[in-house]
């Protein structure tokens, strides 16, 4: 968060005191990125695009088009074969393994299969993310109920994941992703396992989070979802961007 503040201040002074609106700068930049796995054709070929801070970007494509690989490059689970990914101005290939956790704390991740711990309650699942980063217990006791309130689970703190519906579980995941106050939320098919009603709720939550200033990168192949978001759409096919539309409905160009 500190880095953003510095940058915002910098920009603010450059443009004078008049501009109090949210500043635009690229939080994510793919600089001619190619990702190839051993023996296969390139999973991603020469991707070159920017995402501005505060944007809501939907990533569309058939399965195998390279959506997940692209997301993995963002949270540095994979590294680019060629080119460079910049997050918040920082080249990801330069991050040492030891420092990787600090990069991940700036990104909240949401997955299709939730990845909640079944033996921990809703509260504990979210608190765990803070415990793992050495946050004080007082702070955890204060922050966790607050964030669960925001996603609408304020009354289910002591429930276990299996006692919740799929939609509710995904809200817990969203709460866990938000607890670090991340710069960006990366969501990989977050509605893949959900009914349309819950899916819509999750997307609305993501839009709400985006309105509060967090950048969202959402991968999905669900037409309704993309239409509901109705923001910038990047279409991937066979590892290439075939369409990058600032404000669109779901379509294969």
């Amino acid at each position, binding site marked *: 968060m500190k880095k953003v503040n510095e940058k915002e201040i910098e920009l603010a002074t450059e443009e004078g005191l008049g501009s109090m609106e949210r500043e635009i700068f690229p939080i994510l930049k793919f600089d001619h990125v190619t990702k190839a796995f051993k023996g296969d054709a390139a999973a991603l070929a020469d991707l070159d695009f920017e995402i501005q801070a505060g944007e809501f970007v939907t990533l569309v494509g058939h399965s195998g088009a390279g959506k997940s690989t692209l997301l993995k490059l963002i*949270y540095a689970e994979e590294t680019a074969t060629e080119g460079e990914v910049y997050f918040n101005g920082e080249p990801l290939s330069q991050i040492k*393994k*030891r420092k*990787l*956790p*600090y*990069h*991940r*704390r700036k990104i909240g*991740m949401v997955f299709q299969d939730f*990845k*909640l*711990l079944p033996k921990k309650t809703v509260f504990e699942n979210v608190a*765990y*993310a803070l*415990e*793992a*980063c*050495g946050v*004080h*217990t007082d702070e955890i006791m204060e922050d966790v109920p607050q964030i669960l309130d925001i996603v609408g689970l304020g009354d289910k703190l002591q429930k276990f994941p299996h006692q919740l519906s799929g939609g509710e579980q995904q809200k817990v995941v969203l709460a*866990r992703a938000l607890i*670090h106050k991340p710069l960006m939320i990366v969501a990989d098919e977050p509605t893949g396992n959900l009914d349309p009603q819950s899916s819509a709720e999750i997307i609305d939550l993501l839009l709400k989070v985006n309105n509060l200033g967090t950048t969202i990168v959402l991968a999905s192949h669900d037409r309704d979802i993309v239409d509901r978001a109705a923001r910038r759409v990047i279409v991937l096919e066979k590892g290439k961007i075939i369409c990058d539309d600032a404000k669109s409905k779901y379509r294969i160009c």
Partner: protein
Amino acid sequence: MFLVLGRTIKESGINFWRNGWLSIASVSVLTLSLYVVGAMMVMMMVSGTVLTNVEKRINVSVYFKPDVSENTIMAAKADLESYSEVKSAQYISKEQALADFKKNNAGEPVILQSLDEIGGNPLLASLVVRANDSSQYQNITEYIAKASFKDDVSRVNYVKNKEIIDRLNNIIKQSRKVGVSLALVFAAVAVLIIFNTIRITLYIHKPEIEVMRLVGASNMFIRLPFLFEGVIYGIVSSLVATLFLLISMKLADSYVSVAVLSKSLLSFYFSQALFILGIQLLAGIFLGVFSSWIAMRKYLKI
């Protein structure tokens, strides 16, 4: 920092407890190897004490011919004492020797009677030579055999003792070898079993580890619980091994002669207990941590 440490220890304690049988297997093999280490240390200390006790009683007695004057003997004494390997040379006159002999055989009237019948003093004056180190007696006897006063010497008694010392030294060396190899074998087995236990623990905790990575837990936070599990194995095992050591020494106590050791085995152990326990703890913790470290290097992808 303490916060992380506390959470880590709690986590590894839970792992240890929930793994039940796996933990028991790890702990029992590690216990066995630490028990051997402890028993070996006690044995080495005991044998060391016995050896020094025996060595204290070893000396070379140089007996002089009856007609050699006291002055010549005193010169020989000075000569021997100047030899660097010699710790002391004590002069025992004929009269002294007779008095000692009478005292030693006070309860044997036949011997005393026969002594009277011989008349005069049949015993020889002697020098009792002690060496700094038991292995030097050989050199000392050789030195005496070539010394300037060699013609005045009646006899040198050393050979008897030499055999005993050599045999004792040999036994100690052999049993030390056996002990070391036993301990090494058990340690290797313990490492393999702990390695496997941690591997399974890692497998059980795969989803948790994945989540930890995703929420940005530092690498150390992910690793520490598994390292601490190794530490717990080490601590529990060395405590159990100490318990077994105490029991077996209690049982062995009656077989070890108090005379050679000058005190009972248990009290001997207690005088060294902290040292032995310390070594066991160190070895146990090292083995535990070492095994979980290699398990993590192999199976934990961070």
